[in-house]
């Protein structure tokens, strides 16, 4: 479909707005000189992704993102910042490397490749109708069809739990 048709659909306008917000937030995450700002911008980006998920009918995933990501992970980041005595305001020393263009090049190459690879397969036609996925169905699937990955991931969590404690505790010899 053409851009005019696409922009005519109201969902796509909402998508555009949220997308721009996420991009700007993401840009600030990686370029901000203030680390706390970077974390907060990440919150924004994640919130945007949650909204997108809602649009896509993945309500459970959306709220999981809000809960886990924004609620726990970001808080963890803040704690990490505090413990590692990162400068909590604008850093006098640059947070980035002196030469940024190699990274830009690599990032550019990644974007180009990824964008081409993923979109070449699909056309610009209308996708399937979005139906909400009920949480119950998700739960059903999770514990029946995808129970093995589920168990595997629970092991990962267990390992992370133990690992986190072991790594971060005070040395027992001291």
């Amino acid at each position, binding site marked *: 479909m053409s851009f005019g048709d696409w922009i005519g659909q109201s969902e796509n306008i909402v998508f555009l707005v949220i997308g721009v917000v996420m991009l700007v937030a993401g840009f600030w995450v990686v370029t901000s000189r203030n680390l706390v700002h970077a974390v907060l911008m990440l919150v924004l980006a994640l919130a945007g992704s949650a909204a997108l998920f809602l649009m896509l009918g993945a309500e459970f995933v959306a709220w999981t993102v809000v809960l886990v990501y924004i609620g726990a992970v970001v808080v963890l980041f803040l704690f990490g910042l505090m413990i590692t005595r990162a400068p909590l305001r604008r850093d006098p020393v640059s947070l980035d490397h002196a030469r940024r263009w190699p990274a830009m090049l690599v990032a550019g*190459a*990644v974007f180009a490749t990824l964008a081409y690879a993923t979109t070449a397969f699909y056309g610009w036609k209308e996708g399937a109708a979005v139906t909400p996925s009920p949480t119950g169905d998700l739960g059903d699937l999770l514990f029946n069809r995808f129970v093995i990955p589920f168990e595997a991931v629970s092991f990962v969590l267990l390992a992370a739990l133990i690992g986190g404690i072991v790594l971060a505790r005070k040395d027992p010899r001291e």
Partner: protein
Amino acid sequence: MLSFAAWSAAEGGHAGAAGEPSGFLGVLAQGAWLIPVVPLLAVGLIVLFGKRLPLKGWELAEGALVFVGLYGAALLIGNWVDPFAFERHVEIARIGVLPGGHDLVLEWGWVVDGLSTMMYFVVGVVGSFVFTYAKGYMKGDVRFTWFFAAFSLFAGGMLVLVSSPNTIQLIVGWELVGVASYLLIGHWWEDHANNAAAIKAFLVNKVADVGLFIGVIISGLVVGSFRFTDLLDAVEAGDSALADVGVWVGLALFIGAMGKSAQWPFHVWLPDAMAGPTPVSSLMHAATMVTAGVYLLGRMFPFYQAEGFGAGLKPLILVIGALTLFLGGLLALVQDDIKKVLAYSTVSQLGYMTAAMGAGAYTAGLFHLFTHAFFKGLLFLAAGSVIHAVHSNNMSDMGGLRKAMPKTYWTFLIGSLALAGIVPLAGFWSKDEILASLAYDGQHGGGGLATFVLVLALAGAFVTAFYMARTVNLTFFGKYKGQAHLHESPRVMTYPLIGLAALAAVGGLVNMPGWFTAFTSWLAARAHPIVEHHASGLNWGLAALGTLAALAGIAAGTALFGRDRATQRERDRFRIPVLYPLLEHKYYLDDLYDYGLVRPIRGPLARAANWSNNVIIDGAVNAFGVVARRLASLVYGGFDQRGIDLGINAAAAAAGEAGGALRRVQTGKVQQYAAALFLGAVALVVGFLIFT
């Protein structure tokens, strides 16, 4: 190439004294090849295992010799009961064709006839006694095991010599005993004087061996075969080709015999050979090795009897024998070293044997060889016992040993009396037989020469008794002049003395003319019968004369040397006025050899040879070496270093440089690794997209 298919038996194909043995005796005769082989085998075993055995190899040597002795005794008795002459040959190689159509063949074989059997017996029995004695004498020696290896080598070589049916094998045995003699005389080679003595013995023998070689070569080529039987057959048949060269062959062989049997003037090595251990002196230089020359004359006896062949040499043999007999005996008078006395005595007795051969007395000469082995072997062993106790060879350090060493004294006395020829001991019978045959020859062909030799022989008997009495008195009577602690020798040394003394006492009884002549019949068993005169009874006149001469000698010796004088030189010089300086310097013969022969060779000739060797021969060899070195350095420097090594080094340097450059990739910075990771992934995806 040993071809057992080429067995050939040479019988006594003559109507003669002997035939093929049969039955058990035949088995013994056919197995007689063991007799030389067993001692030679013992040599190998001793060298390989001797040191590990409980008796350090002695048991192997003694075992070999006892085996030989028993075998020899068995053969001797068998020969007595049923006389035979037996030969076997095994062809080793064919080495050429003579103009006459004969094939020259190299053979190994063994003879079992009267002469060889007698020698087996002597070597085995006397050897067994001497080996037993040597076990005690050489106790604690630094090279005990090797000593018995060399001694067994000697025994093996001697047995090869006396068992050989052809002249080539005789030479093999001849040289083997020569080598063994060299090794054993120089057994204590730490003292250079011993080395010099060993070399002297070897070289003097070698000079005489030239004669042996010439004789063997000429006779072999002319007759077309090296076998004794073929040679003697040719003599019997009156072969004219052989007769033409007969004198030269006979002379050449006799010269060879002179060297080994220490005839004048080749006797000079024997006294010096006393530098070896006493058992060696006893077995080799008294009983067996030195008798090899006499054995050769005996083996070739028909040759030397036949007119036109060797018979013309008999006067020469007589003269040499007589000279040796008398001059050797005189030299024994003035020796201080007890072994030297016995050495010159051996020379003298060998002269007796040779003279007997020259007079055509086959049995007499060999009988003296037989008895001499016993009493001279005994005398040497007893002297060794004395030396062992007194730690000195010189009689000026001895005296009065009679009380301290009774067994040694009595056995030495028996040996001396046997040597002097006192009835009924062994020497009497053999010496008397020689005198009788000299007398006979004087009347039947030998002429005045033989009679003169007879007189010399009688004088020699006097001298023999004289110097033995001197020796006995100086050693065993009077006051002891040394400082050593005196004791009798251990049983391992005295028992052989007693055994040999017994043999020396009764050994002569096997050939009493007119009564019991077993020895004569033993020796007569030969393929080619010996023509000689056998006395029908004892020649009482000569026996009496001989005994008188001996008793006179004993009396003189006891009278002059019975009482102590201050020094031995004083005694001698006082007693032997004019002759003493001449005798002291051994007739200046050694000096003659030294200045006339040895020094010119050692000096100018040797220097010229050295120069030629260094400059010419070594120069050529060195030139090769220099060229090779230059070439090598060229290859190394130009080709290897610059060419090949450069390539290899460049490759290595390139690898190193590449590594040095590449390692900078490892910066340790994770973000750079991450960048590389992403780039790699992008590249993969792009590649995937492009190519599919």
